[in-house]
């Protein structure tokens, strides 16, 4: 009875807290450059939210604000109902935000497996003294997380490069390993900065499939920066369009596609 009540309550709470992340009036400047001016938007639980815009529009800067690399000059960011002031990236990580980078930021000297295992760091609790022994509970923990990571490796179809140092991998595979590392964090919000940049058509299709699968099967909320308009329109639920640090449109792919300012700023120009 109480279990059912709890479940119902949870359901109600979830419906109310549909928004996972709210960005309100965020501005960011570098010296004289206004990278972001008064940006507001939200990300709902379970959706794929695209952020698009021409080069230098401020997309990466926006992600950097969300996960604590940059601190906005003004405005508020609320994640899972908690508004934060200044936050370090490791705090964002512990609150459940993971991300990939526009220029792959893998641990080059480590193997694929070790890179992905590093994503589990926050889930590992055995202390220093157990780590010294690497037996008993510490080893059990290693194995438990190894199994979790092996599932990710299977899912991303990178079994064959499990023990390869990632510095030696081709770019497309590196991007995939980086996605794996972010997934290993079991994030509530996954930020992907141009996950398909520099990929060929086949690799792009694979990556699209992975992103959709992550969203559907793990119910992970995703914020995605992408240049390929076809991809964006296909896989995202809602789109924010930035230009010169300003938000010029926000809505479903169809709404955005029809917006005259977007057509002028972005879609009209062939990329």
């Amino acid at each position, binding site marked *: 009875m109480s279990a059912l009540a709890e479940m119902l309550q949870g359901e109600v709470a979830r419906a109310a807290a549909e928004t996972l992340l709210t960005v309100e009036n965020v501005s960011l400047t570098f010296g004289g450059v206004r990278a972001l001016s008064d940006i507001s938007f939200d990300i709902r639980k379970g959706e794929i939210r695209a952020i698009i815009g021409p080069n230098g529009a401020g997309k990466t800067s926006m992600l950097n604000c969300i996960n604590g690399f940059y601190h906005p000059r003004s405005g508020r960011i609320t994640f899972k109902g908690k508004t934060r002031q200044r936050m*370090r990236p490791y705090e964002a*990580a512990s609150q459940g935000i993971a991300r990939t980078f526009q220029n792959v930021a893998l*641990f080059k000297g480590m193997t694929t497996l070790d890179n992905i295992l*590093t994503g589990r760091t926050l889930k590992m609790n055995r202390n220093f003294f157990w*780590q010294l022994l690497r037996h008993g509970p510490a080893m059990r923990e*290693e*194995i438990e997380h190894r199994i979790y990571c092996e599932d990710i490796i299977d899912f991303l179809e990178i079994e064959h490069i499990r023990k390869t140092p990632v510095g030696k991998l081709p770019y497309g595979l590196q991007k995939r390993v980086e996605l794996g*590392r972010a997934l290993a964090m079991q994030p509530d919000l996954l930020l992907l900065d141009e996950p398909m940049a520099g990929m060929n058509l086949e690799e792009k299709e694979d990556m699209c499939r992975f992103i959709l699968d992550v969203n559907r099967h793990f119910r992970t909320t995703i914020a995605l920066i992408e240049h390929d308009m076809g991809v964006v329109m296909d896989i995202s639920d809602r789109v924010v369009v930035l230009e010169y640090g300003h938000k010029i449109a926000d809505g479903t792919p169809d709404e955005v596609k029809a917006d005259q300012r977007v057509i002028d700023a972005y879609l009209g120009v062939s990329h």
Partner: protein
Amino acid sequence: MFYREAGQFKTTYASDMAVLPILQDRIGLAVILLIGFVGIPLLGGNFFLQTVMIPFLVFSLAAIGLNILTGYTGLLSLGSGAFMGVGAYACYKLTTIYPGVNIVIWIVASGFFAAAIGVVFGLPSLRIKGFYLIVATLAAQFFLQWSFVRIPWLYNYNASGAIEVPQRLFAGIPLTGANATPVTRYLVLLGIVTFLTWIASNLVHGRIGRSWMAVRDMDIAAELMGIRLLPAKLLAFAVSSFYCGVAGACMMFLWYGGGEANDAFNINQSFTILFMVIIGGLGSLIGSFLGAAFISILPTALKFGVPALGIAIPGTVAEHATYILLGALIIFFLIVEPHGLARLWQIGKQKLRMWPFPY
């Protein structure tokens, strides 16, 4: 043909995650330990133990220490000599204040003092990297070396200004001091090195080792995995200095039998250990041993080995040849193979795996 995984199917992740997953490697390790603990004490003479094996083991420990900091965490240091000194002086004070406690306990405990000092000098590493961090560790080197000489309390006001290692017994057998035989000292040292190597291997293969390497390879991404940079770096400084400290205590108590900081723990010592790590291989425990073996044995080999082959070279020539060879090798490894001897070792094993088929 004979060295490979074939037929050794790893049915569990536990066995795949073992530090030495291949059976032949485990046999190899057992053989090395057997030779180390039984063969060498029985067959190696006192001269061999004192001039080859004991220095090699002391330097291996120090090289593991520096490798944890520089090879695994990517933080450069020229203070290893001074951190060895902290261990040596701590051990000296501890055993003179509490003579009743087993000296082996004090040798290992002295590492904690070095770790604490290491953390203090590691604090700037949050803000500075690379060249500037080297300068900061260099400051540690000079400051500590100065303290060892200028604070007479550290060497118990001895007229010599040096550590004079007292005799310490274990079960009636002298472990340190003039009456301790090279065999005893060697075995105690080998025990310490074996144990601490096992610990280091556990650390670098687990969560902590991964977080160090993550900091080394890409610190912003490491932070994004939830790794806090300052604690990770300070832990590396602590563990690294611990190993250097124990190595310093071993150097004084099990090798030199006494001495002073300006000889034993000077900047040259810091450089020597850095060269061992570079030649052996950054980020590799085996490399630490290979580098230590290479650099600590090379001078002896040139001085005694070459004449033994019937080629007469004067002592000074041998000494100069050592420097020239070392310099050339360091340049070679820095340019051609940053992973050092350890990588050559791996390539050799890879070849062995294929042998006798070239592909």
